[in-house]
Every structure is written in structure tokens, then in C-alpha cells.
């Protein structure tokens, strides 16, 4: 991985350090995520995530219903 942030001595008697803004620096080599593919998940992790998703969907529907109810869409509020 290439990085230019470490101090670079310019071979002069006085110490000199070069500071480079990240946007001006050589693009750094990162983890190649595209070739990693999906994460290996155990069954318990899958079930937990699915339960969480079901909870979120249920709560969203509940909140949406409550907001519509407050807006008087079901005729009980002014």
C-alpha cells in the first residue's frame, strides 16, 4: 500500500517533513471488497437479522398507522 504521509527526509542537514493532503496523495491500496463476496453468516446470525427486519417492518407499519390515525384519516381525530 502506498502512502505519502510519513515524514520524508529530503537528504538535507536540517530535518524536513512533507505533509500531503489526502486528496493530493497517491490513491492508497485498500481491501478489495468486490472480490470478497458476501460475508459468511451462521444460521443464528441469519435468524437474528431476519427477526430484526420483521420487528422493523412491524414497527414501521405501526408508526405509519398511528400517524395516519393522528391525522384523522380513520375519523376518530379532528
Amino acid at each position, binding site marked *: *500500500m*502506498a*502512502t*505519502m*504521509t*510519513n*515524514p*520524508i527526509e*529530503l537528504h538535507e542537514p*536540517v*530535518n*524536513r*517533513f*512533507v*505533509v*500531503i*493532503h*489526502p*486528496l*493530493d*496523495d*497517491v*490513491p*492508497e491500496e*485498500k*481491501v478489495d*471488497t*468486490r472480490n*470478497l*463476496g*458476501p*460475508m459468511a*453468516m451462521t444460521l443464528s*446470525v441469519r435468524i437474528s*437479522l431476519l427477526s*430484526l*427486519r420483521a420487528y*422493523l417492518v412491524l*414497527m*414501521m407499519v*405501526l*408508526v*405509519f*398507522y*398511528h*400517524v395516519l390515525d*393522528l*391525522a384523522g384519516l380513520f375519523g376518530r381525530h379532528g
Partner: protein
Amino acid sequence: MANKFVTVPAASLETEVQPVRGRVVKSRWAHNLLTFLMVFGPGLIVMVADNDAGAVSTYSQAGAQYGTHLLWVVLLLLPVTYFIQEMVVRLGIATGQGHAAMIYQRFGRWWGLFSLVDLELVNFLTLVTEFAAIDLALNKMGVDPRIGVPLVAAGLVLMAVTGSYRRWERTVVFLCLLDLAWFAIAFRSHPPLWQIARGSLIPGMPPGGLTPDLMFLVIAVVGTTVAPWQLFFQQSCIADKRLRFADLKWARLDTFLGACITITVAGCMMIAGNASRVHGFTFTDPAQMAVDIGTFTSGFFKHAILLMMINAAVLGTTAISLSSAWAYGEVRGWPHSLQLPVRKAPGFYVVYLLCVAVAAGLVLIPRAPLQLIILGVQVLAGVMLPSAIIFLQLLLNDKELLGGYANKPWNNWVNWIIITVLFILSLILAAQVAAPNLFPAA
């Protein structure tokens, strides 16, 4: 420090890439300071932008209703918000990609789509609340919102479409530093210093004990301090700024300083709310609180609070709209960078423009149900937060992805405690709002 520009030939660069430009300094101290200043930005912005219009309302209400008694809750949130965002910093620097892209690639299309829809929905509703606050503050300042709101929206779009990340960042950092005016506002209200120290350092229950109203406000304080968009925003921001592995410690410092500033400013908002309470005013909204404070300080402070409200909403809007635009661009595979001109990343800028324009337009519709939207945002953000953090937690334990940057066991302990507490609070909040009859009246 003798600074000058120097061009260092970059051996590993392709021929079409610009040569590397650097700045020469003579001491290690100056090197560290300059490196920090160059890395500084995403951490401060994500934290200060989190003190958005909704936060101004929540914190000042907490102060107006409970005085300095809830300051310890805010202080307790300092390590929480830092720990969560620090994980985002590691993930962003190690992968060089945004949070939405990571969820899509590591959890698959199905989970990625769900996360994206959740984010875009809550973000959009939050944006409406930001413009509702701008509308409210402009009204109190005597400015017609039909003119003021479109002008603010135009400014927000112009801020982002310059084709330069640095220009956007400098503008937003300047706006973040304006937030420090809250210190002056709090100081001018002659704060009771002993009460503030006691309220901050000694956890205690306000007079009246634990009521549903207090519970709701505490959850709102937690929900407004840690929000799902922050995870997506900071990671994409770090990726766009192309922070390097060597920048990690400075990015952490940036995030920590941002967390300290945002928590202290939140405390100042509570102190301002407390001042209005001490003078016998009843809290209705932060704009009215500004008018009330103006009666016992000066017109200058009334306008200062109203301007700070607008500033908070502007910061929130640019950060939230960008988190939406970055996330959508990452998932669709579109070019998505503030470094790119509009013609090279049209989809990214169109999403940003739509977020700002539609939210601003909705606020200007007469009799739009803004209060209902604000209520919905608070609940949805609270419900979704633990879910968003669980994805973050799983990604941070992905050794294949992060290697040495993955979570240590102590990180996991701290994070699971945070997730559990947030989950319980979100459950109470959701139940309290969705089924208020379950809870006895205060």
C-alpha cells in the same frame, strides 16, 4: 514553520494521475499539526451536524422542562457517540468505501436494499423537519419563508455543486464553528455554575420522578445524539476525502473533538432552555424560546438563537442530503463524489438536489402536517438505530474485510451494551408513541 509547496514524484502513479503535491515543514510538531488540520473535517462535521434543528428543539425543551437535571444524560452520550463513530472511521479508512456499499457487498442485495430504503425514508422525513425549523425561525425574524426557504435551499445546493470536496468541507467547517456561539448564548443567560456542575457530574432524577414525559424526553435526547444517517455520512465522507491508514489516529482525534464540541454545545442549549424556565416562560418551540430569552437579555440574543437554529438546520440538511446521495450512488454504482463536477456525477447531484428541493417544497405547502412528520421521524429514527448499529457491529467483526482493524473484544463488549440499551429505549419509545394508552398520564 517555513511552508512551501513541493512536488514529490509519485513512483507508483499511472501517467494520467496528477503528481503529488505536499507542504514542507521543519519540525515534527508542525508536521503533526498540519497533518491533523488536513485530515480534520469529517469527524467535526458529522458530530456538529448532529446538533440539527431537531436537536436544538429537544435539548432546549429538556432544559426548559427539567433545568440542569438532564445534563448528565448528555455527558453520558459523549463516549457512546464517539465509540460508534470511531468504528465508522476504521471501516471507512480500511475499505475506502461508503457504509451502504459495504452492506450491499457483504450482506447481499436484499439486506442492502432494506438498509438503503430505511435510510432514505428517515433521512427524507428528517430533512422536512430541518426546513420546518428554518420556516419557523424565519417567521420569528420577520422574513417571509416563501422567499427565505427557497433561498436557503439554493444556498445548500450551491454549497455542494462546486466540484471540490475541499470547498464544501471548508464552508461546512466554518458553519460548524459558528455553532460555538451557543457558548456565548449560554453564558449571557447567567448560568448557575454550581447547578450545572452538579447536573453534569451527579446522575439524578429531576423533581417529579420518572414520568412518561421524562422518559420520552430522555429517549429523544439519546435518539437525537446518535442517528442512523451519521454512520453512512461519516464513512462516505472519509471515502470521498480518501483518508489513508496513516490518518487513522488523526481521524479519531477529529471525531473525538467533534464529539466533545457537540456534547458541550448540547449542554449550552439545555442551559439556554433553563434560563427561559427560570424567567417563568413555558417552552413551546425553540423559536419562541429565542423570543422569550430576548425579553430578558437583548434583541441581539433573540436573533442569535434564531440564526443558530437556521445554522443547525442548514448543517443537518447538507449532511443528511449528502448521506442519502452518497448511499444511493454507492448502491447504484454511479459516480458519487463531491470532487466531481456535476456533469461527471449527475445522478449523485440529482439525488442531493431532490432531497433539498422536495423537503423545502413540502414545508411551503400550506397546512402540511409537519407536526406529524416530526413525530414520525423521532420514532422511526429511534426504532431503526439499533438495527443500523448491528450491521456496523457485524462489519467491524469481519476479519476478512478489516484484518487488524477489526473490533477487539473490549470494543465488542462496549458496543453490545450500547446496542442493548438503545434497543430497549427504542422499544419503549416506539411503544409510547404507537400506543400511548399503554402508559399512564404524567
